[in-house]
């Protein structure tokens, strides 16, 4: 019995050769890579113009992406997969892995998102990081990230994807820990990388299993052969891929790093931990649809993980006072929605990607907005010390409000369309999941409203030495663009455009009819959100906000403040036993193993120390031993020969 309905057909990846504008495909990755190389190797010589170069590179990539996208639009639907073979990467025995790129409708959308939002965030960072002496390096890292992310998206095989996958992990590590002198930042960076590595185990093993099963790791090869594998194998591959996705996309149980990752500069949070990198898990699941469609059990697990995460993140969002952590919790929750969409199969892939895009816009917008607020508040992140910021920072407020409306799913805004579609599909496939998704929407309404109120409304609570001011144009410009996109990107759904656009990649299937009419679902969703907003209004807007969080709170709140004991669980299950194991092994190594191995001389010396007493200096003792020897020899000879 599957939780979800049966699978549709599996599309095959079969790219054609790259020509024309597509021959520039490699430049999309190469430009930011070059940028990061110049900035990181160039040292202090590039300090003066480094940020400009760093910003130009993703813009260049964006231009190429746009040109390719336009060209792809003009192509036949069956003709929209373009491959580019750069060179043979790893060639051993039957293993042939090329440095291959694949440009298709799915990657096209991602390319635009990454280069577009990426470029905006680069622009924003020029202002945000203006006073940091290591700005040039920051841009180097950002470029590195963009290059790796583009590699992830453009790769035509799983190993290429893995290259980008780990590359973004590295960039994320570098950027979270950008302010390394803060121990918390350094620790958070390491934590993010290590937890991602746990997920990477899954991805690496999935690749290995694919190679063992299919003899190839390319999307085209695997998608063509997937039908021949047993379902158990495919389920295993699917679950391993999911493990990878959980790590990268901060899904339960590998979610704990994301909130800590907010130690990084805010543009990083916007780019990596909202718009792009964390959605790579969703991309992976959608891209591997040819696996998941044939592995319903694995899809079921995806749905379960997604549902748990969307609630988990939402609960975290409710309890945090740190503005970035609220947004991070929200991100986790929203990715849960995307993952849910992806787990729903053919019916949901397109909506998952749709939500991914809209979320990319509005969440980047809000993160940058939050950054702008912090910029004006002396880098304070505690919302309890904000309040009534809207007067001081009108542009930030307005753009942030657009994002807010989008995320809670205010009718007409982009988030409304995309989230609604996922809830609707979920209800159609399984009512319980649908209801939980609906509940999550309500909680979203609550915590986002709480954030809005605490930050921009209520009475001012900041200290006297804080002088909130609007950010410079270089920072507000991206905000405005992103705000516009947050409002408008719902147009992608017009005439089911995005569904049709992606169907060559993910297939197409009409989802089942939901138990209640679609319009009713929409109305219900709006209602639930409204309830959430109202509760927030009554709990936060109508009351005095304490500067310190109240202590006499329920168990649930306490739990939520502690990230639902995510770290505690990890500590108990992994970190502390691991630490104990490490200490035990170190002890074992130095005394046990080494003792046995190196104790030999001591043993021998001990025996020898005993034996040497026989050599007591008395000649008569020697004579006795000699006589003993004689007897021994003679008796031995007689015993051997005469018995």
């Amino acid at each position, binding site marked *: 019995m599957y939780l979800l309905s049966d699978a549709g057909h599996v599309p095959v990846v079969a790219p054609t050769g790259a020509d024309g504008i597509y021959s520039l495909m490699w430049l999309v990755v190469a430009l930011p890579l070059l940028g990061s190389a110049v900035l990181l190797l160039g040292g202090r010589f590039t300090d003066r113009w480094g940020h400009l170069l760093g910003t130009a590179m993703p813009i260049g990539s964006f231009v190429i992406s746009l040109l390719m996208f336009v060209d792809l639009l003009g192509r036949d639907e069956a003709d929209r997969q373009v491959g580019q073979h750069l060179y043979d990467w790893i060639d051993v025995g039957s293993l042939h892995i090329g440095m291959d790129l694949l440009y298709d409708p799915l990657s096209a959308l991602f390319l635009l998102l990454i280069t577009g939002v990426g470029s905006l965030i680069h622009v924003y960072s020029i202002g945000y990081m203006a006073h940091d002496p290591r700005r040039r390096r920051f841009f180097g890292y950002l470029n590195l990230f963009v290059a790796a992310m583009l590699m992830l998206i453009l790769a035509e095989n799983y190993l290429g994807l893995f290259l980008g996958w780990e590359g973004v992990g590295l960039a994320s590590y570098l950027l979270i820990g950008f302010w390394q002198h803060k121990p918390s930042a350094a620790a958070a960076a390491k934590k993010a990388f290590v937890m991602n590595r746990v997920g990477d185990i899954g991805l690496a093993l999935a690749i290995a299993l694919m190679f063992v099963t299919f003899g190839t790791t390319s999307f085209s090869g695997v998608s063509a052969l997937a039908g021949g594998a047993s379902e158990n194998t495919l389920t295993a591959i699917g679950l391993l891929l999911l493990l990878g996705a959980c790590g990268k996309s901060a899904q339960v149980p590998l979610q704990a790093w994301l909130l800590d990752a907010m130690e990084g500069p805010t543009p990083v949070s916007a780019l990596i931990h909202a718009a792009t990198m964390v959605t790579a898990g969703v991309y992976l699941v959608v891209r591997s649809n040819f696996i998941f469609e044939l592995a319903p059990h694995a899809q079921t697990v995806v749905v379960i993980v997604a549902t748990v995460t969307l609630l988990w993140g939402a609960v975290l969002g409710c309890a945090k006072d740190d503005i970035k952590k609220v947004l991070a919790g929200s991100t986790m929750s929203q990715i849960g929605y995307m993952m849910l969409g992806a787990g729903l199969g053919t019916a949901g892939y397109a909506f998952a990607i749709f939500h991914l895009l809209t979320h990319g816009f509005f969440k980047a917008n809000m993160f940058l907005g939050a950054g702008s607020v912090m910029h004006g508040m002396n880098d304070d992140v505690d919302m309890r010390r904000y309040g009534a910021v809207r007067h001081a920072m009108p542009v930030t407020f307005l753009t942030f409000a657009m994002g807010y409306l989008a995320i809670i799913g205010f009718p007409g805004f982009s988030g409304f369309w995309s989230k609604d579609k996922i809830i609707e599909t979920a209800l159609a496939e399984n009512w319980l999941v649908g209801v939980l998704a609906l509940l999550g929407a309500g909680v979203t309404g609550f915590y986002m409203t709480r954030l809005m109120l605490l930050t921009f409304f209520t009475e001012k609570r900041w200290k006297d030495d804080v002088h909130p001011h609007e950010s410079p144009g270089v920072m507000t410009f991206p905000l405005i663009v992103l705000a516009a996109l947050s409002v408008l990107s719902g147009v992608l759904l017009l005439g089911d455009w995005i569904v049709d656009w992606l169907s060559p990649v993910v297939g197409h299937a009409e989802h089942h009819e939901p138990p209640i009419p679609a319009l009713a679902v929409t109305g219900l969703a709006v209602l639930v959100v409204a309830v959430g907003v109202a509760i927030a209004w009554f709990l936060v807007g109508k009351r005095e906000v304490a500067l310190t969080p109240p202590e006499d709170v329920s168990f649930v709140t306490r739990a939520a403040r502690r990230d639902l004991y995510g770290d505690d669980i990890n500590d108990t299950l992994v970190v502390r036993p691991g630490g104990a194991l490490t200490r035990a092994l170190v002890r074992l190594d130095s005394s046990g193993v080494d003792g046995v191995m190196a104790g030999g001389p001591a043993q*021998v010396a001990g*025996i020898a120390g005993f034996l040497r007493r026989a*050599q007591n200096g008395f*000649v008569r003792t020697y*004579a006795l*031993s*000699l006589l003993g020897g004689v007897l021994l020899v003679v008796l031995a000879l007689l015993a051997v*020969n005469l018995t």
Partner: protein
Amino acid sequence: MDFTKPTIEYAELSPLLIVFGVAILGVLVEAFLPRERRYLSQVVLSSVGLVAALVATVWVGVDLGKVGDGAARGLVAAEGTVVVDGPSVFLWGLILVFALGGVLLFAERRLEAGVSVFAGQAAALPGTEAERQASTRGLDHTEVYPLLMFAVGGMLLFPAAGDLLTMFVALEVLSLPLYLLTGLARRRRLLSQEAALKYFLLGAFSSGFFLYGVALIYGFAGSMQLERIDAAVRANVENQALLYIGIGMLAVGLLFKVGAVPFQAWTPDVYQGAPTAVTAFMAAGTKIAAFGALLRLFYVGFGADRWGWQPMLWIIAILTMLIGAALAIVQTDVKRMLAYSSIAHTGFLLTGVLGVQSATELADGEVTSLQAVLFYLTTYGFATIGAFAIVTLVRDSGGEATSIQRWAGLGRRSPLVAGVFAFFLLSLAGIPLTAGFVGKWAVFTVALSAGAWPVVLTAIASSIIAVYFYVSFIRLMFFTEPDGGAEGEVASVTSPSILTSAAIVIALAGTVVLGIVPGPVLDLAAHAGQFIR
């Protein structure tokens, strides 16, 4: 009854005759030359004698005729009492070379500020007026040279003996001078005399057993000729008990000389107590001669009953290697450590003795047991003489600094000497690119070929133990800060005269060359062929 004049092959026996002749000349020199001139004449006489004997040996070796099918060469001389065959000649060559080294070390006078390492007057009490006078007058015991020559003569005769009586006489001829030489140290006289006493008593005791073995074997075979004994063993005559008790007792006498466990007790004490020059000569020469005799006795005399005595030798070899190596670890005196090391080497040599003896059982060109042991003896001799020679150089105010603690950090103070010593130790340890490695390889190989894998495994285990103390000692010399011990004194290197230097250089050259191009000497050992009966 007609008197038949015995035929003596003077030409073939010339090395023996030269050495004994020189020894007797040496006695005459002692008797008739004034004291002051004895030193020079004795040194020259014995050196020339040894060189002449060496030349004669080479000449005999080149000239040796083939016997039978050509697997062996040589002849039975002096009415069957002396066998001049390939192995004998090879061993003679070795003994003479190392004896020459011994003479060089004996003659060294620079280290003790103009006097030799031997007591000026052995009969004088240490610390008495007589002693002091002897010292100030620069008196020397030049008798050591004739003694040395007699010992060399015995060593030459020992492995070449064709019957048991000759073997016994040779044993005594080589032993008695060594007993005396052991007791003649100038410094630490008490230790020296004690060593001599122990050596003498135990040596006499063991030769008693040897002799009783001779009697029993005679009783078994009706002859003392090895050839006849072999025939009797093959014929499987009555009285096997006589044979085995006899074999056992003969073995005891020989194993005592080579210092095999459980007959090793004298080795450390004597090696430590004897003047180092004597130790060097004795350690190399005695072992070579005794192993030669052992090989001849067991291969020629009892070769037909190999399965009868091999288990006994297996056990002895295993015990010897393990105990020699293990006890060396805990030593605090360099000479004593080298003594235990020499016990361990006896074990390794015995491993070689256990190998396949007959060339017919081997593949074309495969190493034979005899070849392996002969080669091992060569490498061992060079390294031992060299090592003991260096021990004579490392001194503090009390003479030779044999306490290991004193050697700490020597590598910093005298890198050259310490380096050379380390090289000898590495050779003794059997590290590749030294002669010792090739020797070790050879003896282990022949033992393994004969299926004695338990012995080989033990040999490898004890090699690891042995390596430990050699390497520890190298570490002590190079990487340990000297703390000087209770007296706060460290040893330093006294620069020797040309004599000791020459001995060291020869030993070093031998060790290096045999390690890198062992081929010629191996071929020579192979060329020596088999024992003849």
